[in-house]
C-alpha cells in the first residue's frame, strides 16, 4: 500500500515539476485582436495591408487595410478616387511597449475601426466602430476622416 502511495506521489511531483519547467512561449496578442462579441461586418485583419501610421501624441498606431479592389487600386494609383466596390478599414490600436525589445511599441487593444465603402457613384460611405465590444457609433468629421484615410499611400515594397 505504502509503495503504491509513493509511486502516486512520485508521478504527481514529476508532473508538477514538468509543468513548472515547460515554457508557454509568447502566445498570441489576443488583446490587440478583434473579439468574438465585436459587432463588425467582417474581420478587417484578414484583408490586405496598404500602409501603417503612428500618432505618438495619442500613443496610437494604425494600419490601413483594403479588399482586393482597393489593394490593387492603391498599388497602381496615386489618387484617392477608389473604384466602386473598394472597402478600406483604418484599424487604430493603443500602443504598448514591446516587452521583448526595449525600443519598440506594438499594438495593444483596438481603439477604433473606421470603414469606407465606395459606391458606384464614387461616394465613400463612412462608418466608425468603437468601444468594447466594438460597435457602430455616431460618425463625426466624416469628410475630414474620409480624406485623411483615403489619401494615405501604399507602402512601397519591391
Amino acid at each position, binding site marked *: 500500500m505504502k509503495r503504491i502511495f509513493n509511486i502516486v506521489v512520485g508521478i504527481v511531483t514529476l508532473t508538477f515539476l514538468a509543468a513548472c519547467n515547460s515554457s508557454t512561449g509568447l502566445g498570441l496578442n489576443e488583446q490587440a485582436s478583434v473579439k468574438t*462579441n465585436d*459587432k463588425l461586418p467582417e*474581420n478587417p485583419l484578414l484583408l490586405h495591408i496598404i*500602409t501603417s501610421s503612428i500618432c505618438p501624441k495619442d500613443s496610437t498606431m494604425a494600419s490601413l487595410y483594403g479588399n482586393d479592389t482597393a489593394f490593387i487600386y492603391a498599388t497602381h494609383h496615386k489618387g484617392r478616387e477608389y473604384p466602386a466596390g473598394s472597402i478600406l478599414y483604418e484599424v487604430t490600436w493603443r500602443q504598448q511597449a514591446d516587452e521583448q525589445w*526595449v525600443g519598440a511599441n506594438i*499594438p495593444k487593444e483596438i481603439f477604433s475601426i473606421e470603414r469606407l465603402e465606395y459606391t458606384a457613384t464614387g461616394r465613400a460611405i463612412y462608418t466608425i466602430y468603437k468601444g468594447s465590444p466594438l460597435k457602430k457609433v455616431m460618425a463625426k468629421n466624416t469628410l475630414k476622416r474620409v480624406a485623411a484615410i483615403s489619401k494615405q499611400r501604399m507602402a512601397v515594397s*519591391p
Partner: protein
Amino acid sequence: MKKKVSIFLILLGIVISMQFVHPEKLSDTPTEDLAGVPAEVNNILRKSCFDCHSSQSDLHWYDRLTPANFFVYRHIREGRKVLDFSKWDSVATPAQNNILYYSLNKILEEEMPLPSYTMVHKNAKLSPTDIEILKKYTLSRTPRKTTDASVINTADKEYTRFIQGEITAGNVKPTPNGIAYIPDYRSWKVISTSDRFDNGTMRIIFANDVAVKAIQNHQTQNWPDGTIIAKAAWKAQVKADGQISIGQFFQVEFMIKDVKKYAKTAGWGWARWRGSDLKPYGANSMFTTECTSCHKPMKDNDYVFTKPLDLFTQFKKRN
C-alpha cells in the same frame, strides 16, 4: 600528514609548471570614456562591459593563471570582435544607438554580462539602478525628429517609381546562405506591426499560409516546417505635427522554418535584402550568426520576437 603535504607539493608543482604555457598575450591599451556619454553611464559600462568589450581589460591575477587564461583570453577576443567600445568615436550616431539598444536588451534578457563572468567578477554585476540609468539614457538618445525635406523628397520619388511599376523584384540575388528572394510576401496575412523608435523604422510582419494555419492552431511556440515569416521595414516619416507615416523602403527579412535543412541555424533559414534594389545582406554565410545571436533570447518562443494577432476570431453576431 606527510602524505597530504606530498600531494599538495605535487599539485603546486604541476600548477607552477603549467604557468610556462600560456596563450598569446592580449593587447591591452587604455580605452577613453565614451565621448558625449554621461559619466554615470560611462562608469557602468567600464565596470560591467569594458573588460570584454574594449581594448582595456582590467584582469585579476587569477584570470592570468593557466589554464584559466586560455578561457578568459579567448572569451575577451570573441567579445571584442562582436563589440568594441574603444571604436566608439569612429561609429556613426545611428550605429551607436543600435549598439546601446542591443546591449540594453541583452542585459534585460540577463544574457549580459555573462553569468559565468559575474559569478567570478561580482563587481561587474549590474544593479537594478544601473540598468535603469542605462535604459533612461538609451531612450533619451532617440527622440522622434521631424524628417528632413530631402529625405521626404527621396521617398516621394521612390513611391512614384513604384506606382509606375518601375520598382519590382527583378533579378534579385540570393543571400550568401543560398536563400532565394520571396517576392509575394505582400499578399500574405499581416500578423503584427512594430514601431521601432530605437532606429526610426516602422515594420509590418507577414506570415505565409503555413504560418497562418499555425496561428489558427495556436502552434506558435513551435512553428511547423514550411512556416515563413517576413518582416518588412520602412523609414518612419515624421511630420511637423508629430504624425508618422511610412517612408522609404528599408529592408525585408525572412525566417524560413525547416528543422533539418537549417539545423545549424536554430532550425530557421535567415535572409535579409536591403534597399529598393534588394541587395542581399551579409558578406558571407556567417552573417546568420548575427541573426541567431539577436534572436537567442527568444529561444523559448522558437526564436520569434513577434506575438501574432489572433486572426481567426469568429463573430457571435454580425452587424
